[in-house]
């Protein structure tokens, strides 16, 4: 058994343990941690298979973006809503386990019984090194043979983004928020509570005082006497001067 195989099985073991953690953990956050563990180990396995670019993409996209999003959503969901806190369904779990084990046995037998058959391609370690590394080689193949596919993928991602924005956009304001804005806190003359006429857009120059540009594009009024701007406040957009 070579070191390579040993390392592979070590990484695979942790990946499988992580995956088991996803399924077994009660708390979705713990599931997510298991998933990240699994993904990171799979990324390391990609490194063994000389797929450096994919390994990094795996970490950035899966571990860095997708699972972070999942954790984000999980934290937004109220903990009382997590169904597994209220009980599991033993019959279903038993059925799932039996089916899973049977399938695993079958598939493993099939894999072990039949070797891999196929025609080897041109991309040996030497040819990849000659092009200038895994990333360059990938790029050359990707942007020649798979040009249409990559354009379509870009389109798919765009569509998904738009779809997600449409789905996740909150209703303009929630009911309670609308109520909070509608509610009259203390006074009946509350302008947000009653439909009051709009305040005047422009005001006369102060009779006794001056207007000062105070900064940030804001005028402030400097009143010299107490009889102005009491009934009619110095309020609203200052008229264009």
């Amino acid at each position: 058994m070579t070191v390579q195989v040993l390392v592979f099985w070590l990484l695979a073991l942790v990946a499988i343990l992580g995956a088991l953690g996803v399924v077994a953990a009660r708390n979705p956050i713990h599931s997510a941690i298991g998933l990240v563990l699994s993904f990171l180990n799979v990324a390391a396995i990609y490194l063994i298979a000389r797929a450096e670019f994919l390994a990094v993409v795996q970490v950035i996209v899966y571990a860095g973006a997708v699972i972070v999003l999942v954790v984000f959503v999980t934290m937004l969901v109220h903990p009382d809503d997590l169904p597994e806190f209220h009980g599991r369904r033993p019959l279903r779990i038993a059925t799932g386990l039996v089916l899973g084990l049977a399938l695993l046995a079958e598939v493993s037998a099939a894999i072990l019984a039949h070797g891999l058959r196929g025609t080897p391609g041109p991309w040996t370690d030497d040819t990849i090194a000659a092009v200038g590394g895994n990333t360059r080689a990938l790029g050359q193949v990707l942007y020649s043979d798979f040009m249409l596919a990559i354009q379509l993928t870009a389109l798919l991602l765009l569509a998904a983004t738009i779809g997600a924005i449409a789905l996740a956009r909150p209703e303009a304001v929630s009911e309670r928020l609308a109520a909070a804005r509608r509610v009259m806190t203390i006074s009946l003359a509350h302008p947000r509570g009653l439909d009051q006429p709009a305040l005047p857009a422009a005001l006369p120059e102060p009779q006794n005082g001056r207007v000062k540009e105070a900064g940030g594009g804001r005028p402030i009024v400097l009143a010299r006497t107490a009889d102005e701007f009491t009934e009619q406040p110095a309020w609203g957009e200052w008229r264009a001067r």
Partner: protein
Amino acid sequence: MIDFSQPTPVILSEVRQISPTRRELVLNMGPQHPSTHGVLRVRLTLEGETVIACDPVIGYLHRGVEKLGESHRYAQFVPWTDRTDYVAAPSNNLGYVLAVEKLCGIQAPERAQYWRMIMAELTRIASHLVWLGTHALDIGALSVSLYTFRDRELILDIFEKFCGARLTTNMMEIGGFSREIPPDLPEMVREFCRYFPKAIRQYEDLLTENPIWLARTKGVGVIEPEVAINYGLTGACLRGSGVNYDVRKAMPYLLYDRIDFEVPLGTHGDVYDRYLVRIEEMRQSIRIIEQCLDQVPTDGPLMAYESQYVIPPHKNVMTTAEDMQRHFIWVIKGFSPPKGEVYHAVEHSKGELGYYIVSDGSPIPYRLRIRSPDFVNLQSLPYMAQGAMLADIVALIGTIDIVLGSVDR
């Protein structure tokens, strides 16, 4: 028709419902929280980062100051006023002594009145500096607070020179000042007035045109003028909304009617306007102080005399029998103002600070009530907070300029 025989039903709006729905998060800000300016507690109901309801819970610093006033003799209560709004102690003293003087029908000599004005305006600047520093710190501008506290030290040095104390000054006395003005104090104040406009420019360089500051303050926490009036707001909170009400102009006390100054009014009623208004108020305070220094007589009495309500000067106590007896009575028994009630308000740095005193003719007030401006101003927080972001809450608490000692009393 309201039936006054029945207790008024308290309608708790649905905003105040205690159990939040599942999408909401209840966040207790305070009483131990870095930006609630002491021990304010704010119970926030959040949806995401948007505030749906905001309940300020006060009383964590309640010491029963008003009740203490009803068990202290009139002159003994002055130090207690220091401890309400402890960043603007001389103004609190001023409000109280003016109310007592009004009750007794006495007036401080002209020179003392000028010096009271100087000290009140210095207090206003000091208080605004604390406000500016903490407000900027809340919004994340770290350095401004250290600059403002650096300059506040100069004012506290003046206080120290004048009365020996820096924070709880116990400066004003009923009838004027019993201590003589130190000879180099006027020059000290003038020096400060020369220096301070530069300092204001420094703060403004850091904040006024700063895009992040503008983004954080413009359009945030808008109070419409009607709302401001209805909530009974005073001070910069009211004037930021464009309503012209400044006690110094509307009901001039001391000698403010002799001074030429302007009252800044905001035009949009948001956090930024209140910031601009307070910055301008500091400039106007410097103007007032300079005029006072020009007009104040260089000598003359600082304490009203020949009155049963005022403690006699130390020199007379030592030399004349009548004054010694008066002093003895004043100290042992206190003075008894006439029966009646009185309300006197001053323009405190935070708004209208009023003292309402009911006298039953005994040396102890029958009832003493402090209308502290920030207690009233704080009530506008839920109004401003509805629909705001969580981060705005600290800006809103900051913009009201509260000192919990004064809110809770």
